């Protein structure tokens, strides 16, 4: 590896070092004297809970933030990165967790966006397309340059992001949670691509909180906690348990005890339910499902395969085009959320900041989002009884260990985990008969995740019927009694918790039906 050019024709970054980086936000030390380095040909994973400082550190490297102290040294020379433009010039690329692509434009147009054309004012999309073809060839990242983004699958969109970074001359790639939206098979393909890139001399930084992936792909792992560097270790010397402990600073239970619960009567039943997605096509196709008292049914699947529509139909936010929904054998198809609230349905919504809370409202005001007009929160249904609301709120804050300065604090100033705990507290305190928990721990730190999991299991033991919708397969495996897999709006298979197997589930998530999945070797 003496050659300083990469197969893409760009200059290699042999060694990039961040030394004693400090970043302060008013009142917080977001990054506290962290050393981080990455060499050509390696994957260096950056691991940590939310708020540990991973993304702040990487935003400094990518030029989105400037460091208060510390240096960045590229190939032995001190360099200053003031903006993403600088970092791109220096060969640093970043693949964001949420893709930065314009859906209505084609692949080539997206890549050309923001780049000067070789032909002055006239577009040079054919040149871009040709070059994309060459790059795609090298790393088997085939996509059709003339297709619009919205027609591509999530995995393909990610390829476009990687291709764009390579096109712009990235020798060092920062990948921010790149696997969050992929099926296990797509993850495998991504890893193959990443391995080939490192073999060619690219330097890669892999941000994740999925321990097994970190162990599978990286050569070194740096763990951050509360802005401080816990350690940097070789991946071969690490195990899931040690990494998890480093992340949270204490022992973590990755498996839960499932208490014995006698499964009761059916509480939630769907019969042949179909519904349209926002795009207007059938996002949910003929889904039949039953959840009984004391049971957690997990809906597994890659993001955007109908889970969102499923939760919305059950909770009355999306009218079904056909089929029936029953709660406690009472027909509730197409009923309004208000009616469903009355019939004992609680819903932890997927997008908690959009659907679950009102950001500008206080913690207490958010607590009574559904029940503000009912006793004991309202007097005669007209005047709100803020004294009772405050009292209930304070006791729930204590019971659910919600960290907040007071019940009058606007909820937007709480951390993601604490906001989710409040949503959980609200939904569980309504003593539901059926609970829909959609992505209950997405973007939530490990401590709060564990707490939420334990609460859900306790709720199961109390006899609530729980429908758990999650893109995190580990979460489903840890909690669900039965696992239902969805693909393109349909149920493609169902397995019980004891017979669940990750590979088989992964195949089903990729659309291979249960029967086939069993006979197909991985």
């Amino acid at each position, binding site marked *: 590896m003496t050659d300083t050019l990469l197969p893409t024709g760009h200059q290699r970054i042999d060694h990039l070092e961040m030394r004693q980086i400090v970043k302060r*936000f*008013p*009142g*917080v030390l977001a990054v506290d004297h962290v050393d981080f380095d990455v060499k050509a040909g390696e994957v260096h994973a950056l691991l940590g809970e939310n708020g540990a400082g991973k993304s702040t550190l990487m935003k400094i490297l990518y030029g989105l933030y400037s460091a208060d102290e510390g240096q960045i040294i590229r190939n032995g020379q001190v360099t200053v990165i003031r903006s993403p433009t600088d970092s791109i010039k220096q060969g640093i690329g970043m693949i964001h967790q949420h893709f930065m692509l314009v859906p209505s434009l084609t692949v080539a147009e997206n890549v050309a966006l923001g780049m000067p054309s070789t032909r002055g004012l006239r577009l040079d999309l054919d040149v871009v397309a040709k070059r994309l073809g060459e790059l795609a060839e090298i790393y088997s990242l085939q996509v059709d340059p003339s297709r619009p983004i919205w027609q591509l699958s999530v995995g393909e969109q990610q390829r476009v992001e990687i291709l764009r970074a390579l096109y712009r001359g990235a020798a060092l790639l920062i990948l921010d949670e790149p696997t969050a939206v992929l099926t296990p098979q797509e993850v495998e393909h991504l890893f193959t691509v990443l391995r080939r890139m490192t073999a060619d001399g690219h330097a890669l930084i892999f941000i994740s909180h999925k321990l097994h992936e970190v162990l599978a792909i990286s050569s070194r792992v740096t763990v951050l906690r509360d802005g401080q560097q816990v350690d940097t270790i070789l991946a071969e010397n690490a195990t899931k348990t040690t990494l998890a402990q480093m992340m949270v600073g204490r022992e973590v239970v990755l498996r839960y005890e499932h208490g014995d619960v006698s499964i009761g009567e059916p509480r939630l039943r769907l019969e042949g339910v179909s519904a349209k997605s926002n795009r207007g096509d059938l996002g949910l196709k003929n889904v039949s499902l039953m959840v009984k008292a004391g049971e957690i049914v997990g809906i597994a699947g890659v993001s955007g395969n109908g889970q969102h529509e499923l939760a919305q139909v059950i*909770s009355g*936010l999306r009218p079904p085009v056909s089929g029936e929904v029953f709660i406690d054998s009472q027909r509730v198809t197409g009923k*309004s*959320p*208000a*009616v*469903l*609230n009355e019939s004992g349905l609680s*819903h932890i*919504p997927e997008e908690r900041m*959009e*659907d*679950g*809370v*009102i*950001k*500008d*409202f206080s913690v207490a*005001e958010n607590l009574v*989002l*559904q029940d*503000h*007009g009912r006793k004991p929160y*309202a007097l005669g*249904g*007209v*005047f*709100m009884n*803020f004294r009772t609301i405050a009292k209930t709120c304070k006791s729930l804050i204590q019971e659910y260990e919600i960290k907040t*300065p007071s019940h009058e*604090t*606007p909820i*937007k*100033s709480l951390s993601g985990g604490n906001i989710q705990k409040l949503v959980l507290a609200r939904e569980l305190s309504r003593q539901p008969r059926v609970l829909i928990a959609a992505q209950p721990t997405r973007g939530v730190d490990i401590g709060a995740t564990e707490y939420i999991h334990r609460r859900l299991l306790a709720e199961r033991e109390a006899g609530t019927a729980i429908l758990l919708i999650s893109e995190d397969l580990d979460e489903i495996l840890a909690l669900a009694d039965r696992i239902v897999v969805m693909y393109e709006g349909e149920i493609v298979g169902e397995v019980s918790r004891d017979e669940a197997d990750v590979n088989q589930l992964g195949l089903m998530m990729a659309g291979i039906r249960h029967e086939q999945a069993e006979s197909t070797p991985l």
Partner: protein
Amino acid sequence: MRNLIDRLFAVLLPVLAVAAALLIGAIMLLLMDADPIEAYQALYDGAFGTVNSRSETLVKATPLLLVGIGICIAFRGGVINIGGEGQMIAGAVVGTYVALKFETMPFSGTASIYHDLPQYLTIALCMISGFLAGAFWGGIAGLLKAYFDVNEILSTIMLNQIALQLMSYLLNGVMLDPRQRERVNHIPRTARVPDYAQIPRVTWLTDVPIRLHYGFIIALVLAVIIYIFLWRTTLGYRIRAVGKNQRASRYAGINVKRQMLFSMFLAGGFAGLAGTVQVLGLQYRLQTDGSAAGFTGNAGFNGIVAALFGGLHPVGAIPASIFFGGLLIGAQSLQRTVQVPASLITTLNGLVVVFVVSSQIFVRRRTQRRAKEQ
């Protein structure tokens, strides 16, 4: 301690913004060869210098406050009501019609059956009718917005025009003063509303005869009531919830469409009330010069400014409307004393609005920074 400083900051900021606007106004005055100190002295004296000027300021502030209260509800509910002018007109037309009905039956000319009602009930009945008429006019825009997704900014502006033309039509026709009817070049105006339908003046404050009427006191009381309504009742909670986050409101089982319609209804109602109060408390008859401002004095728009200046808080709108009322009244004496065009005051008004509204960004930044620190 820090909390106190934050509060102080939030209160002082609009004051500073006003000072900055006046400073720029001073430069403009200098450019026009006028002495800014003399000019501002005249402005202040004109607005607050005498008992009469103070009374006139409050008279001017009354419709601003009433419209502003409605604007607080609409904006808190997430609907932008630009239709204050039209709603004022709708309220004034119906309020006046009802008031006139107390004297004679409108078409037959026979004595009214309600003749014997006590005065306060008569006035209340007129005001409720005016409120409902404005509410209906605002409700049209609310309905279009909630159920047909029609932009309320557009529809309210259009409804302003319709209300104006409708008023012209009625004042030249069925509502025309019978005494004007015989004339060849009649003035489009109604008959004078009967004494017992007029809002009485506040006489116990001073011996000087002033035009300040109980409409202002009613507006003050309503501001407090609406504050309680918005922050202490379930209905107000729902309006604010919908205004802040429609998706979460829908998720929680709140009927978002109904709340949108309702907040527009209330906003229109308060503007309608402002129109009625202008007639019953001040002008005693409805008259048009063919423009909306001819009747409203632009209160339908200035009320929005007062509400924004008051932080979209009904109680905050009280000092804000007095301030703007003062500016408008003071402008007249400014014009007389230093011989500058009154349009300078309009400019000054505009400057104040721009400064105050844009200074809010500092408050927001500050709270965001505070939030991050937590």
